[in-house]
């Protein structure tokens, strides 16, 4: 199966400023999280994929076609930009229908698709209000509506959850997942790690215009062999458990936290630790209430990779 999006040595400079450097990746269907701090090159990458920017070096292929100036391809893509892109004087309905007309939809289809998109983002009741009067969350939903209204197969969402309240955030996340289940390709960029974490395990870490890592969050975690892993255990006898592990060479540190019965063990070989843990627990008759990996999340991986 060919990748839907493929970039080859993709680089972009703005004069002397590096926007993106030597990016060669393949992106398949499903949700891919594009993660990086502000100014990392996420928006540049998005704009190169939507064909709005010309690569300085390399190429972007979408469904095997070059993205730049490929107007037919654009009708299969939905793009939700990071910043507000509205004429405040227009109503939400006028904005959506105008965007659909730009996608060459016929009048009955414009009406039908606009209605569907507005209903999905729950803005149908406010469709005749001018955008100026919309709240930040409503604007964000409207921006998402214009990206999905023409039923694209590829969705590029630049910081889509910005400005949404927790409920709106949850709804939008659910909606994005629905699109994933329909077999679409969705790229979500964000600098907020938990946002990406709840959406997907497939991530691309981008920083200073370079791809730092790509793949499953756990796969990336495994790549960082020397980086110590923390395992936090709440058990019936934490001192005994600590004493059994402290002498092992793969255990670097043992810490007793403020939480009652919790011990945090730092290891440089997670596999070895977890293979010996059950026997230690069994032999010493220790009951376990909870086992967690506090640093097995995107924030920890991200911080480690970018060298914080």
């Amino acid at each position: 199966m060919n990748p839907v999006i493929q970039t080859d040595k993709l680089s972009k400079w703005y004069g002397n400023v590096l926007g993106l450097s030597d990016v060669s990746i393949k992106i398949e269907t499903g949700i891919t999280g594009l993660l990086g701090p502000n100014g990392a090159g996420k928006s540049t990458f998005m704009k190169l994929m939507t064909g709005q920017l010309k690569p300085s070096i390399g190429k972007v292929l979408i469904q095997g076609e070059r993205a730049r100036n490929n107007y037919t391809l654009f009708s299969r893509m939905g793009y939700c930009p990071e910043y507000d892109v509205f004429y405040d004087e227009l109503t939400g309905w006028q904005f959506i229908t105008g965007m659909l007309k730009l996608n060459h939809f016929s009048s009955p289809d414009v009406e039908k698709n606009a209605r569907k998109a507005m209903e999905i983002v729950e803005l149908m009741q406010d469709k005749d209000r001018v955008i100026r009067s919309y709240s930040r969350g409503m604007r964000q939903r409207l921006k998402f509506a214009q990206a999905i209204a023409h039923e694209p197969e590829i969705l590029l969402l630049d910081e889509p959850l910005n400005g949404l309240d927790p409920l709106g955030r949850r709804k939008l996340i659910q909606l994005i997942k629905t699109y994933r289940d329909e077999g679409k390709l969705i790229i979500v960029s964000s600098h907020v790690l938990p946002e990406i974490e709840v959406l997907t395990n497939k991530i691309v870490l981008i920083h200073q215009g370079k791809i730092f890592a790509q793949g499953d969050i756990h796969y990336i975690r495994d790549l960082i062999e020397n980086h110590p892993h923390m395992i936090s255990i709440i058990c019936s006898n934490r001192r005994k458990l600590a004493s059994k592990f402290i002498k092992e060479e793969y255990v670097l540190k043992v810490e007793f936290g403020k939480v009652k019965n919790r011990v945090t063990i730092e290891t440089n070989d997670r596999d070895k630790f977890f293979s010996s843990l059950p026997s230690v627990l069994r032999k010493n008759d220790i009951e376990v209430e909870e086992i967690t990996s506090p640093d097995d999340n995107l924030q920890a991986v991200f911080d480690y990779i970018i060298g914080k």
Partner: protein
Amino acid sequence: MSIKEKGYTHWDGKLKKMKFPWKPITQCGIKLTFKKKFFKFSFFLTLVPALIYLAGIYASEKIEDFSFLTRDTDTLSFLKVDPKYFSSYFTSDTLLFMIILLMVFCGAGLISDDLKYNSLQLYFSRPIKKNDYFMGKAAVIAFFIFIVTLIPGIVFIVMKLIFSGSFRFLASFPWLIFSVVGYSIFITTFFAFYTLFLSSLNKNRRYVGILIFGLYFFSEIIFGIFFGIFKSKYFALLSIEVNLQQVGAGFFGQKPVYDIPWILSFLIITMICILAAIVLKRKIRSVEVVK
């Protein structure tokens, strides 16, 4: 069905080609213009010269009913409906001023608002070419300028035929309709480039409005100063207004106000349009860059 089971299906449908992909941009531009404060009043104001000239055509055919006007020789000569009458309408200072007024309302925000609202990225992530974008914006300008040039010009001819009850007028000046159409297109093309160019220079439509007014009258002032000092008629070529009037005289087969070949003015206006097109192309590309 999960994504991994479903896999990906390549899109094999055909994109329906639109005859005028720029039409939605134009419709939106016109709609937004009518929403502007005081626009409707100003728009009505721009139609006043056309209404006066239309009344003149009526009066010229019913001259016996307007005998009080015939005492004044100037008025009498004004009421003679011929190519000069048309030329005087199309090249009048008043009409050009009205067009500038229209440009401030309908043209100033055309690109500057897109820059302000970051809308360009939405346009260009859709099946819209850069030329379609420019065409859509220029069509907004054309719509309003044609209302005060092309449409009145054709209405004048039709009304002259109706009021006179014969086709003699058209038989005497068969080329006049081409002059009306040709000059209307020429003046619209110029103002489209002029306005879009200035609109692409700033994100604030008020500043752009000032620029549209300012540059037009600044060229007139510069001409006045140099003409006053050096007394050379060729300095008239510095004035946008004079150049438009000279070309207008050429289109309607009239003697230009300044004794300079009108083709020079035509070339200058064409040069301005070409320069504006080059700058526009560069400016619109440059704003695609992420800041």
